C-alpha cells in the first residue's frame, strides 16, 4: 500500500488517498474482500469543552455516514463500537434508509445498511457524542534513546515524554478535597490521568522515573525475569484536560537479548523495538517521535531496516556523532523521526547491522593507558632536573 502525495511529499487535501496493490490481479466479474484498518488522530473533541472535576466527560466525533471511497458503492454499513451505552446524541439521517437510522444496540451504533448506489466521493456528515471518562492522551513529543555498550554488555533505554491530556478542561479550580474523595473509592472514573503502566522486557533492571523537579517517588516496579516486567508510574499530579506533564523514564537490559554476533568478521546485528512506553487501554497518540540509537564508539553502521508490524510510518533518518563519557571520537548515532504514530508501533523492530573491530573496542583503555603512561614519563623526566642550589656534587642517577 502506498500513500498518494503531492509533489513536495505532503498532502493538504481533505482526503488522503492510498493505493492498495492486490497480490493477484482481479479478473472481470470476480470478487475479493479487502480489509483496511487505519487510525485517525486528533479526531475527537470534548463536548462540553469544560466540565466539573467529578463530572463525566463526553467526546464528539464527526465522520461521514457514507464510507469514504474513490469508487461507487452498492452496499455499505458503518458500525461504531463505543465501549459505552451512554450515547446522549447522534445525528439521525433522513432519506438514506426507510427504517430508523442509525440503530443503537447497547454500546454499538450502526449507520446503514444502505442498499442504494452511492457515487464515489459522496459524503453525509454525521456526528456522535458518547461518554468517555478517561484521559485523551497525546504525546506532543517522545524522545527515545537506546545506548549500546559492549564493554558493559548493556543496552540502556531512556524515554522523554511531553504528555498532554486533550480531554475536557476544568470549569473550576482543581479541588484537592474532591480529588481525594474521588480516589477514596478508587473505581470512580475520571477524565484525569492517574497512572501509566509501562510494560518492560523481562530482565529489565535499574528503572528510574524523573521529571524537571527530580525523582518522582510515586512509582512502582514489578520486575520480571521470565515474564514481562511492569513499571507503574503515577505522575506528580493528576493530569486533567488541557494540562501537561513531561517526564523521563529509563532502564537497563542485558545486551545479549538485543544484539547478536555474526559468524563472519566483526559484525553485529541489533534489534530494538521502535516504541515501548506506556500501554493504556485508551491509547496514546504521538504527534512527534524521535528514536536515537547510539552505537559503541568506533563502530560503523552498515545497514538498517524495520521489520514486523503492519503500520510502519514514514521514518526520516539522520546519522550524527554523539559524544559522551570516555569518548575520544564520538559514537555513531542513528536518529529516526516519525510524525503521528500510535501505540501499535511497538510491534515494529529496527534492525541495525554494524561493524565493531577489536581495535576500536580497545580505543577507550588504550587512550587512558597512553595518558597515564605519559604522566609517568613526565614524572621521570622531571626527576632528571637538578633543582639543588650550589655546585653539583653528585652525578645524575639514571
Amino acid at each position, binding site marked *: 500500500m502506498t500513500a498518494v502525495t503531492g509533489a513536495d511529499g505532503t498532502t493538504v487535501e481533505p482526503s488522503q488517498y492510498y493505493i492498495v496493490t492486490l497480490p493477484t490481479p482481479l479478473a472481470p466479474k470476480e470478487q475479493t474482500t479487502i480489509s483496511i484498518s487505519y487510525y485517525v488522530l486528533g479526531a475527537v473533541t470534548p463536548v462540553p469543552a469544560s466540565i466539573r472535576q467529578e463530572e463525566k466527560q463526553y467526546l464528539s466525533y464527526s465522520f461521514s455516514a457514507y464510507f469514504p471511497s474513490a469508487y461507487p458503492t452498492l452496499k455499505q454499513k458503518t458500525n461504531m463500537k463505543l465501549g459505552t451505552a451512554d450515547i446522549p446524541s447522534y445525528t439521525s439521517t433522513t432519506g438514506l434508509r426507510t427504517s430508523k437510522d442509525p440503530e443503537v444496540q447497547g454500546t454499538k451504533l450502526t449507520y446503514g445498511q444502505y442498499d442504494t448506489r452511492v457515487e464515489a466521493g459522496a459524503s453525509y456528515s454525521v456526528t456522535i457524542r458518547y461518554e468517555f471518562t478517561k484521559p485523551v492522551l497525546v504525546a506532543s513529543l517522545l524522545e527515545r534513546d537506546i545506548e549500546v555498550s559492549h564493554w*558493559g554488555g548493556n543496552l540502556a533505554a531512556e524515554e522523554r515524554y511531553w504528555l498532554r491530556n486533550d480531554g475536557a478542561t476544568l470549569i473550576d479550580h482543581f479541588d484537592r478535597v474532591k480529588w481525594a474523595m474521588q480516589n477514596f473509592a478508587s473505581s470512580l472514573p475520571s477524565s484525569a490521568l492517574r497512572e501509566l503502566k509501562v510494560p518492560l522486557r523481562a530482565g529489565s533492571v535499574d528503572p528510574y522515573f524523573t521529571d524537571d523537579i527530580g525523582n518522582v517517588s510515586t512509582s512502582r516496579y514489578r520486575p520480571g525475569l521470565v515474564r514481562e516486567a511492569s513499571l507503574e508510574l503515577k505522575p506528580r499530579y493528576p493530569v486533567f484536560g488541557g494540562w501537561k506533564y513531561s517526564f523521563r523514564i529509563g532502564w537497563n537490559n542485558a545486551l545479549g537479548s538485543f544484539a547478536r554476533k555474526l559468524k563472519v568478521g566483526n559484525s553485529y*546485528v541489533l534489534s530494538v523495538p521502535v516504541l515501548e512506553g506506556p500501554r493504556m487501554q485508551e491509547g496514546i497518540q504521538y504527534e512527534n517521535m524521535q528514536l536515537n540509537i547510539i552505537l559503541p564508539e568506533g563502530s560503523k553502521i552498515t545497514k538498517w531496516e524495520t521489520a514486523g508490524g503492519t503500520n510502519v510510518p514514514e521514518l526520516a533518518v539522520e546519522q550524527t556523532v554523539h559524544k559522551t563519557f570516555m569518548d575520544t571520537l564520538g559514537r555513531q548515532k542513528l536518529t529516526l523521526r516519525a510524525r503521528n504514530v500510535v501505540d501499535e508501533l511497538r510491534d515494529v523492530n529496527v534492525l541495525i547491522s554494524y561493524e565493531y573491530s577489536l581495535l576500536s573496542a580497545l580505543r577507550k583503555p588504550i587512550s587512558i593507558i597512553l595518558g597515564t603512561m605519559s604522566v609517568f*614519563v613526565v614524572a621521570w623526566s622531571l626527576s632528571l632536573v637538578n633543582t639543588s642550589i650550589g655546585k653539583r656534587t653528585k652525578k645524575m642517577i639514571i
Partner: protein
Amino acid sequence: MSATPLLDIWEASASQPFQPSIGKSAQLTIGFTLLSIALLLSGLFGLNNTLKNLPLYGLPASLAFGFGAVYMICGCGVYV
C-alpha cells in the same frame, strides 16, 4: 511484510547472542581490583622514579588503570 535480508541474518544468528567479556556482576570487583593494583604500582614507581622502573612499574600500572577505569565506570552504572 515479507522476510527481509537483515531479518534473515538476525534469525540465522540466534545461537550467537552477544557475550560481554566480563559479566555485569563482576565489573565492579574487577574494576576495583585493577584500580587498586594501578594505585599500588604507581606508588612504587613514585618512590623511585627511574628509567628502569618505568617499564617495570609504570607500564603495568597504566595497563591496570586503563582497563580498571573502563570496568569501574561500567560497574558504577555508566555503561560506556
